[in-house]
């Protein structure tokens, strides 16, 4: 199967800032791809290049078999895009806004009417569809945005931070909807976000961006496994850490590395060494606050890349 999205050495510079730096990305039809990264890591810039809304400095992009830089219209015919801060014409009703999008996509009047009803039903905005979009709440706007994107019956939808500014319930609801739409209609979804939990739940595959580079990519379970194959991690928190404690912990046979951040200590090794750790702590007469094997969620992987904020982000 030919990939739906493929980029090679995709690069975008803004002056001296490398917003995207040699990105290689591949996405298959029907896949839900989570595009993660902290603020300013280049997610939106990548998306703009996928749609031909900004030109790459170097590298190539192909979306649905077309080059968005040369032939953006061909790409836009098949790809629905929900921008980061989507807006609607405030004095038109939600329904009128959608009809306008349908018209721009060359959908005939009679088709448009019932398609609009269908997507409004999907996002449960049939009632609110009669009200001017200017009165919509943030959550309703995102839902209307999703409806708008679905109108053209795309192969791929690109959602730039769709959960931004929604409350937890709203996030769950929206994600459920995205998942449903992907499964039911077989639409591929490219979703950027910095909300990890949601991505974990609905994505087939995720890629993590940091400073314009893809630092990790794979299925959620792959990534978690990759992190764990290195061995075992024990997490210890004490009231007061000391050199001798760290020294003693490093002496444990199975331990490879001890990483102390003030009173929080991460011990990694080849096996579970909680027993030895507790003995040492007891011997050193240190008061222990917490001891557990660290079960590495994707969150921790993610945090690792999020520790240092990307450059140039205000």
């Amino acid at each position, binding site marked *: 199967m030919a990939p739906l999205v493929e980029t090679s050495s995709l690069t975008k510079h803004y002056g001296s800032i490398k917003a995207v730096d040699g990105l290689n990305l591949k996405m298959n039809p029907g896949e839900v791809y989570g595009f993660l990264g902290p603020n300013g890591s280049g997610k939106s810039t990548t998306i*703009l290049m996928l749609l031909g*809304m900004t*030109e790459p400095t170097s590298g190539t992009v192909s979306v649905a078999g077309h080059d968005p830089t040369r032939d953006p*219209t061909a790409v836009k015919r098949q*790809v629905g895009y929900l*921008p*980061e801060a*989507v807006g*609607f014409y405030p004095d038109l009703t939600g329904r009128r806004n959608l009809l306008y999008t349908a018209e*721009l996509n060359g959908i005939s009047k009679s088709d448009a009417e019932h398609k609009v009803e269908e997507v409004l039903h999907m996002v449960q905005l049939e009632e609110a569809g009669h009200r001017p979009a200017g009165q919509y709440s943030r959550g309703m706007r995102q839902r209307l945005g999703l409806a708008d994107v679905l109108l053209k019956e795309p192969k791929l939808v690109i959602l730039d931070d769709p959960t931004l500014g929604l409350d937890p319930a709203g996030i769950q609801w929206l994600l459920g909807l995205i998942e449903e739409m992907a499964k039911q209609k077989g639409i591929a979804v490219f979703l950027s976000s910095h909300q990890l939990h949601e991505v974990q739940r609905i994505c087939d595959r995720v890629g993590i961006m940091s400073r314009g580079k893809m630092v990790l990519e794979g299925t959620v379970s792959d990534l978690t496994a990759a992190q764990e194959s290195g061995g075992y991690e024990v997490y210890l928190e004490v009231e007061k850490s000391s050199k001798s404690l760290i020294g003693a912990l490093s002496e444990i046979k199975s331990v490879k590395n001890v990483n102390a951040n003030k009173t929080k200590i991460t011990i990694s090794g080849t096996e579970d060494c909680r027993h030895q750790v507790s003995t040492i702590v007891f011997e050193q007469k240190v008061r222990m606050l917490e001891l557990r094997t660290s079960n590495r969620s994707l969150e921790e992987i993610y945090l690792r890349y999020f520790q240092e904020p990307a450059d140039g982000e205000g």
Partner: protein
Amino acid sequence: MTAIFWKEMADHLGRRRFLLTFLLILFGFLWGMFILFREVQGSGVSTGEFLFLSLFTNSSGVLPPVLFYLGFFGPLVGIALGFDAINSERTQGTLAKLLSQPIHRDAVFNGKFLAGLTTLGIVLTAIVLSIVGMGMFVMGYAPQGEEIIRIVGFSIVTVVYLAFWLAMAMTCSIFFRNAVTSALVSLGLWLMATFLIALLIAPALAELAVPEVSDLTQQVSRESWQLWISRISPSQLFNEAAQILLNPEARFTGVLSAERASQLMRVQATPISAGQSLQLVWPHIVVVFSMVAALIGVSYTKFLREEIRS
């Protein structure tokens, strides 16, 4: 593009700017009526055979001529229709969505420009037709061939002139993200073109070019400097063209005022044909037209390659 065109038309003529366009037509009509009324009531038929033309050029003592009304308020409407064309889409967050639809970017600009132009055309036609119509009703006869050609020619010149202001305002709406800035810059340019160039800048520069005026040749040379400098303003070109088209007696361009004209050159008070008048204003039309084209070109180069972040 048709989708964008009709959406924008609905915005201009519908809810959003209905009041603006409606009031403009109404005032234009009332203005014309007032002048018509004075004319009929006053010294009878004043301008002889070109009575319909005089409805546009005669002032009533209180009100300046209809020509002034169109030349003064027309540009403001052009600006009102264009100053937030692109930047309002940007601030609403609809621009990214609009440009992610399978349309060309120039279609967005063209659709909006044509909708604005059509609106201006409708407003102008409504004003001109209502004035001429009332004139026919009151005087009991219709304008003759010559007069019709002149009125149509004048309407076309006016539309081209208003297109300039629409294009200017739309260009500002691309360059300035803030609608208020865009409006202020457009108004500033309008002020400059309408008043500052003719009243301040051109005389000052002409004085620099010809510092001494002691005889008639120097006077003429300074006057012509002033005229040519003020012709960088489309308002000047419009005024000249409108005067020529609506005054069959006007035989040359470059008359600043009647006294100066008679002072500098001999005026023959015999009317010339509409065709001859059209020939005289042809350069004016072409120049304003190319100014419009240049503005659209500038907008294209900026807008078509620009990165659109929401």
